[in-house]
Structure formats: structure tokens, C-alpha cells
């Protein structure tokens, strides 16, 4: 089996001295896999994916991304961040720049691309998420769903190998969730490795290769979506599923 693109080996993390947020995480993700992570709030799901691009630091264990071990080495972190794109719950677009400027910022200043090429790449990504006509507007002039799609396009401008999604639809009004999920489903069909923390079970069923259920810092169960939703093995998984699928 080819080596995994993301590998967690007995990774542990503490907040302060007492809160053990990630406990002995062992996880392998292959290239091109689409993973959905779900679980109650406070279970450490966001912390897990934020460790992948070093937005959080783990204290114990080994975390490898695309072969390189993530640690204190600045060069490794910079390299990883160029390969991993992230989409946040709160979009985190830069409000003082236009949509186009938001997208070309990194290619120009980090990727050292000339402006013409950066603009072309940006427009291509905007078309991919079907929002090209808003290129010269400011983020706060767009709706929540539109902003999140811009955020996805911004992450895609780095041509990443891995895309991380941290509850991308949780801050959206219900009528805007569909447009973002549609973009994500389309992305999933194009072969990019995706790790997605979400409560949208419909998305998981449609797209995921594997569903991982986390509770209290541990991976409780991982399985294919069908197996997980129809036949949860663990008591806690059953409990969680009954709460979110109940109504």
C-alpha cells in the first residue's frame, strides 16, 4: 500500500496542564481519500485538523504530512502550508481587499507569480466555484454562502494537494448551505484529498470514503458512511447519531 499522505502516530495534545484534548490519535489518510470527521462539540475534531497545518502544536507523537514530519522546523511548516489549503467556519476573508485581491495575495507574495498570471489563476478558481462575476466586490458586500465559496477558491489558488474544511457550513444561514456543499461535492469528484469536519451527514453519505467519529479526544469509530450510519458499532456513536438524526 502506498504511504499515506497524512499519518498520525500516537499523537497527543494538551491545552494548558490539564485538558487532554487529543488522546493517542492513530490515523492514516491516503492520497485522494475524502474523510469526514464528526462528533460532539469539544471532542477535538477541529484541533485534529488544525494540527495538520500547524495552526495547533501537538506535544507528543509523530505527525507526518506528505512524508515530512511536522515539528519545530520552520521550513517544513512553510512547505506544508503551501500544499495544504484550509477553509474556516468564519470564512476569514480579508475585508479590506477585493475578492480578486484576496485570491491573488498569496500567489503573488508567496508564490512569486507575476500579477497577470496570479489574476488568471484567480479567475479560473472563481469560475470553478461559480462566483467569477463578484471578483471586484468586497467580501462584506457578499452573502455568507458567497463568501465561503470565495474562501474555498482562495485556498484552491495555492493548488494544494490536501484541502481541510473546518465546519465550513456551520456559520451559514440554512438557505446558503446547499451552494457551498455543491462546490465541495464537485471538488471531491476531482480527486483532491479532503478532510472535512462537518455536521452535514448528507454530504458525508454522498461523498465520503470514510467517516471518523471522535469523542473526548479519541477516535471512537471509523467506517464507510453506509456502515457507520446504518450500523454503528459503538454505544457512543449510536448515542450521537440518535441526537443529530433524530429530528
Amino acid at each position, binding site marked *: 500500500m502506498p504511504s499515506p499522505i497524512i499519518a498520525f502516530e500516537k499523537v497527543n495534545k494538551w491545552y494548558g*496542564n*490539564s485538558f*487532554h484534548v487529543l488522546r493517542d490519535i492513530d490515523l492514516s489518510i491516503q492520497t485522494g481519500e475524502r474523510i469526514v470527521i464528526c462528533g460532539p462539540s469539544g471532542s477535538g475534531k477541529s484541533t485534529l485538523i488544525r494540527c495538520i497545518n500547524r495552526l495547533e502544536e501537538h*506535544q*507528543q507523537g509523530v505527525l507526518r504530512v506528505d512524508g515530512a514530519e511536522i515539528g*519545530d*522546523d*520552520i521550513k517544513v511548516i512553510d512547505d506544508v502550508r503551501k500544499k495544504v489549503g484550509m477553509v474556516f467556519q468564519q470564512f476569514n476573508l480579508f475585508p479590506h481587499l477585493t475578492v480578486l485581491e484576496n485570491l491573488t495575495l498569496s500567489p503573488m507574495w508567496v508564490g512569486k507569480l507575476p500579477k497577470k498570471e496570479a489574476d488568471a489563476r484567480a479567475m479560473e478558481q472563481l469560475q470553478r466555484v461559480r462566483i467569477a462575476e463578484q471578483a471586484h466586490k468586497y467580501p462584506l458586500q457578499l452573502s455568507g454562502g458567497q463568501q465561503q465559496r470565495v474562501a474555498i477558491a482562495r485556498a484552491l489558488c495555492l493548488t494544494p494537494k490536501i484541502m481541510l474544511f473546518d465546519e465550513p457550513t456551520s456559520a451559514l444561514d440554512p438557505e446558503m448551505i446547499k451552494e457551498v456543499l455543491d462546490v465541495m461535492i464537485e471538488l471531491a469528484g476531482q480527486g483532491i484529498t479532503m478532510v472535512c469536519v462537518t455536521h452535514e451527514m448528507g454530504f458525508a453519505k454522498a461523498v465520503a470514503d470514510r467517516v471518523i467519529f471522535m469523542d473526548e479526544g479519541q477516535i471512537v469509530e471509523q467506517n464507510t458512511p453506509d456502515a457507520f450510519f446504518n450500523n454503528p458499532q459503538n454505544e457512543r456513536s449510536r448515542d450521537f447519531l440518535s441526537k443529530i438524526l433524530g429530528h
Partner: protein
Amino acid sequence: MSKPPSHPPSKRWSWRSQAFRSLVYQVLAVAVIALLVLFLAHNTATNMRQRGIQSGFDFLLGTAGFDIGESLFTFDSGESYLQAYLVGVTNTLRVAVLGIVLTTILGTLIGVGRFSRNALVRGLCRMYVEAFRNIPILLQLLMWYLIFTEFLPAMAEAWEVGPFFLSKGGLNFPIPVWANGHVWAAWGLLLGVGAAVAWRKHAWSKFIATGVPHGMFWMPLGIFLACGIAGWLLGGAPTETNFPIRGEFSVENGGSLTPEFLALLIGLTMYTAAFVAEVVRSGIQAVPQGQAEAASALGLSQSHSMRLVQLPQALRVIIPPITNQYLNLTKNSSLAVAIGYPDVVSIANTAINQTGRAVECIALIMLVYLSTSLATSVLMNWYNARSEIKER
């Protein structure tokens, strides 16, 4: 639940390590500052040697050789510099504490006045704030001093209002002669605080049990005052008061406040009150209108709504900036040197001129003000932490 490892994973000591880089930057920064300090200290030492200026704080024990216009306790030119400094500190505190109390009252009234139903009151409060905020405090102090020294009559023809005299020589007022009975009264008041607190605890638990509020405010107040009066009576009920009387050239007896003190107090109070008014106004505005509406929807009266719902929330917003204004008032009292009130800066100025020990004297000034600011910051942080609205 296991504990985090006490030794972090081993780091490579290379430029690529984040920890190493930050260490290098910090060491560089500290080194640069240290070198600068050494350079300046060396220059200072050389210059002082050249000019024959001594250094050290031993001058504090030497004789001051100057008189101080007013102080809380007796001081003459034969006392030490240290004594002079203490007089300065007490003078500063005198004007600062009184100023803080007065400015809070005035500022709150004006701040609340900006929400008055009456448009004239609102307009006048607004004009007060704009007028006093936009003129420098030094200029205001000079004007008040001018009023006190030019437009008030000479002491021989002082204005008389009841037992009070107002003139170019300041304000003269009757002051009780300190006797044993007053000490008893002070002890009585102290006991009264304890008794009042105890009574209120009792009344509060009764309220919790029965829901009937009984004697929650006026009783403790009454107990507090009664204990004080009882102490006064036990001490012999001294009533002797020193009344000021109009002498031939001046007003004699009684307590007095100099025009410098009055000008400084009034100037500082009115200037800072403009800022306090703005702080109070923003505090009241910070409480969402919905809070008052919800309170009245629950059937609370206007005063209950104010006391239990709006004021606690407004105070949270008001306390930090108002503490800032108190500190500003204390720091602005240093301008006393411009109108001749002997506060700590004024006395330090005299000391510098007499001994040439600029570094030491300025360091002492800064020490006095820094300890006040620090003490206030600590108090304020404690209050802030205690009254924070707890969030997830």
C-alpha cells in the same frame, strides 16, 4: 487523564527551528537595550563628574532650607528633604482624593444629564463637555488662579456667607476642635460599619426566606450613624468649634484652604468632570435598550430596573475608563507647580534647583506616580476579573 510531558520533544538548534529563532531575536533585543543603557549611564557619570554634581540619595537627609506654603503637618526649613518630599506627597494626595470624589459626583450628574428629557439640560451638559474638554488644563488652572487672586476681595474685606469667609486668602471655615470625644466617635463609626454589615446580612437572609424586603438600606445606615453618635456622646459630646473671625487685616482662626489649593481643586475637578461625563454617558449607552425593556416586561419598577439590571451592566463598562480618568486627575495635579501649590513635583523642582541632583529627584517623582498608577491598575484588574460576564 494523563499529564503533558515535562520535557518537550528535542529541538534542533538550527536557524530553521522556531524556538531557536525567537530566542536569538530576544537575546539581540535585550543586548541592544542593555548596551544603550550602559552607554547612557557612562555618559551621565562622566558629565556629572565634570560638573561636580554629586550623586546618591543621601541629600534626602540634609536640611531642606526652604519653607513650604501649606501642608497637613508642621514643616519648617530646618527639616530634611525627605520630610519636604513627604509633605509634597500628602499635598498631592489631598488634592487628588478630594478631586476624585468631587469629579465623580459632578461628572456623573452631567453624564446622566445628557439623557434628560429636557432639551435645555441636554444642551447645557453637551456645551459643558465640549467647552471644558477642548481647552488645555494648564490654561484652565491659570484662569481659576487668576479669578481667585484678582476678583476676590482682599482678606480684610472677605465675603461672608454664614460662618464661611471667602477672599484672596482662600476659604476659611469652622473646624471642630479635636478632642477625645472625636476619637470615641471614630471608634463608634468603625463599630457601626461592622454592625451595619451584620444587620444587612440578617435582613438579606430574611428576604431570601420570606420574600419580604425589610430594613435593607435605611436600617444599616441608621445603625452606622447611631454608633458614631453613641461614641461621640460617650466621649463627652465635645461641641467646641473653632470659628473664623474677621480680624483687622485678615481672617483669623478656623480651618483654611489656600487659593492655590482651591484653584487647583476646582480646575482639576471641572476639567476631569467633562471626561467622566463622557465615560458615564457611554456606559449608559452601552447597555442595550432591550435590557430595560425586558426588565419592565418582567414587571420591575423603574428604580428596580435601574438598580438590578442596567446599572450593574453599565458599571462594568464605566469602571475601567473612569479609573483612567482618576489617574489622569492625579497626574494633572502635577501642574500645581505652575500656580505655586506645593505638591510633590513643585517640591522636587525646588530640590533640583538647590542640589542639582536632577536624576534622583526626577526618579523620586516618577516613583510616587508610578506606585499610584500600579496600585490602581492592580485594583482595577481585580475588579475587572471579578465582574466579567462569564462566557463559554
